[in-house]
């Protein structure tokens, strides 16, 4: 370059022999990825409304054993770990009822019908199924967990453990032994958190509270005269339970933290470091979609057909929820309807981050569908995909003083908006979960969705204890450990004041 004549495009010197400015290198101009990412279903992947999806591996104890103690005989009932009958290899109803071409609705992939590992093979003859009584002890080591191998995962299937998938496919997750120890430690940390953390509101933990709870108090509806009472409102209260003794909580739960969301100043300095940080490597346990369309995560597995069914159901949820292709909302859809209902409430409000948490993240949806498929063997995957009641979910928060009134008013507004109440469960007298959970149907989209009614205190506990809840409802958690965790959860829940009047709100389940 130095020998080129001055002024040549590649010469380091100008015509007047002055040195040229150094050329900027392209890599130095590269901008880092920025901002939050949208999940495949349009939901914010980092939405706090769904801590389970990201936090599960962090807090759930790795299932290592599935323990069953000796049990009494039950005539006609199969024994635990009985051999798979011939029907087990038949295609599931999901595939049979699929309207897809035969090639797509073929029976389960080879991985499903593949012989089980020796450790899983029962030595009991099939004829025993109809004659063996009751259950028997099945304290199985991890290696004996029933595993449905994924096509590409057979080689790495190992100590997956059973965390709910049970007889269906325990897929060895990417969690190794060290990871499992780590999750155990983090679970302990969750318990320690309970011991040390102040009930500081809900702002920083707007995760998806799977559980919820109600309150009590017989005269809670007296303060809001313009609202119909539970007694004269046809909201499905035919089997009202006895009103439990109420325990008035504080007049209002201090929730200043709702406004205390992290600002730009608190954000990590991604602009500075994104281009120079090394590859952090893949997460310890992330969802995997196989080349054939199958899906696996957290020990759950969906066949290509089942995964497609889940995607279709998610698509319906996405449409019903109301977010448009530009990420905004118009007048139609459930979320705009909920915001209109919120605006009509005299007290209470939706969670601040409702728009980002209304849709259940795709992988959490699939995880739930996988559990339902195992749990409801007499239903097809298509039916079960429509039974995922919290594919879209909302949470109303009321102060304790107006909880009963506000919940009643919200019910009235929901019904007035055309939604049908299908199930309501008042859990304020539960020793663990506190709140009211309800399931509604949107006739316009023929979809069910969930609405929870909380006080700030019950919501706060449900979020702080969400890791515990995840572990408690992980079928792979050893029974003794589950009992211990439930005890901890109960201690946390006991601190939640039961709002006055909550006991007047009855359970309900629509017939038919």
């Amino acid at each position, binding site marked *: 370059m130095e020998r080129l004549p001055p002024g040549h495009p590649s010469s380091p010197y100008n015509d007047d022999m002055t040195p040229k400015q150094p050329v900027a290198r392209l890599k130095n101009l590269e901008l880092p990825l920025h901002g939050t990412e949208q999940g495949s279903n349009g939901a914010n992947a980092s939405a706090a409304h769904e801590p389970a999806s990201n936090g599960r591996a962090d807090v759930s104890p790795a299932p290592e054993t599935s323990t069953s103690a000796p049990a009494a005989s039950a005539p006609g009932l*199969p024994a635990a770990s009985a051999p798979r009958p011939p029907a087990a290899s038949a295609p599931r109803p999901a595939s049979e009822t699929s309207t897809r071409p035969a090639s797509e609705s073929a029976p389960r992939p080879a991985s499903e019908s593949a012989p089980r590992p020796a450790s899983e093979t029962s030595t009991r003859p099939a004829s025993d199924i109809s004659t063996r009584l009751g259950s028997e002890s099945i304290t199985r080591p991890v290696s004996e967990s029933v595993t449905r191998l994924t096509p590409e995962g057979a080689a790495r299937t190992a100590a997956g453990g059973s965390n*709910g998938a049970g007889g269906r496919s325990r897929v060895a997750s990417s969690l190794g032994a060290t990871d499992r120890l780590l999750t155990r430690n983090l679970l302990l940390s969750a318990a320690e958190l309970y011991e040390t953390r102040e009930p500081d509101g809900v702002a920083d933990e707007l995760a998806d509270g799977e559980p919820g709870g109600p309150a009590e108090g017989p005269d809670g509806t007296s303060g809001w005269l313009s609202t119909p009472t539970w007694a004269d409102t046809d909201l499905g209260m035919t089997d009202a339970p006895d009103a439990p003794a109420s325990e008035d909580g504080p007049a209002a739960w201090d929730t200043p933290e709702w406004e205390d969301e992290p600002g730009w100043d608190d954000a990590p300095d991604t602009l500075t470091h994104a281009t120079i940080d090394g590859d952090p490597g893949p997460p310890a346990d992330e969802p995997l979609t196989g080349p054939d369309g199958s899906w696996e995560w957290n020990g759950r597995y969906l066949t290509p057909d089942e995964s497609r069914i889940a995607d279709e159901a998610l698509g319906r949820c996405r449409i019903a929820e109301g977010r448009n292709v530009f990420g905004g909302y118009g007048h139609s859809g459930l979320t705009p309807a909920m915001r209109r209902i919120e605006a009509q409430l005299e007290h209470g409000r939706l969670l601040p981050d409702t728009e980002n948490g209304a849709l259940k993240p795709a992988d959490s949806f699939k995880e739930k569908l996988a559990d339902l498929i195992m*749990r409801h063997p007499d239903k097809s995957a298509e039916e079960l995909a429509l039974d995922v009641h919290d594919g879209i979910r909302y949470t109303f928060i009321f102060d304790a003083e107006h909880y009963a009134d506000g919940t009643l008013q919200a019910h009235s507004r929901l019904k007035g908006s055309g939604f049908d109440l299908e199930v309501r469960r008042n859990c304020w007298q539960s020793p663990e979960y506190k709140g009211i959970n309800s399931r509604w149907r949107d006739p316009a989209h023929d979809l069910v969705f969930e609405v929870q009614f909380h006080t700030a205190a019950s919501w706060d506990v449900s979020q702080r204890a969400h890791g515990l809840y995840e572990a408690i409802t*992980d079928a792979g958690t050893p029974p003794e450990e589950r009992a211990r965790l439930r005890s901890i959860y109960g201690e946390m829940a006991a601190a939640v004041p039961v709002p006055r009047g909550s006991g007047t709100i009855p359970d309900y389940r629509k017939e038919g």
Partner: protein
Amino acid sequence: MAGDIVYFAIVGTGRTAQAPSGLARRRYAGPDGRTPVDEALRRELTWEPDSAIVEWEFGEVGADLVEISEAVAARLAAGWRVLWDDGG
């Protein structure tokens, strides 16, 4: 408590306790026989660990759980065995 088993019909949407979509049970184990062990019946007709009962106790509003007798549970399981053996 030890030796006791409580059976539940898992009543999914559109189903009844007489025609449920699944079965769950709780038995008790442990040194004192008081630790609950929850299971559900799989399509393979095996009882496997499952959290359906616990989730229901935590306010789940999906399927309902209805306690049934051991005999009814056995009858339902036998019916499914026949149904699924036939490829249903």
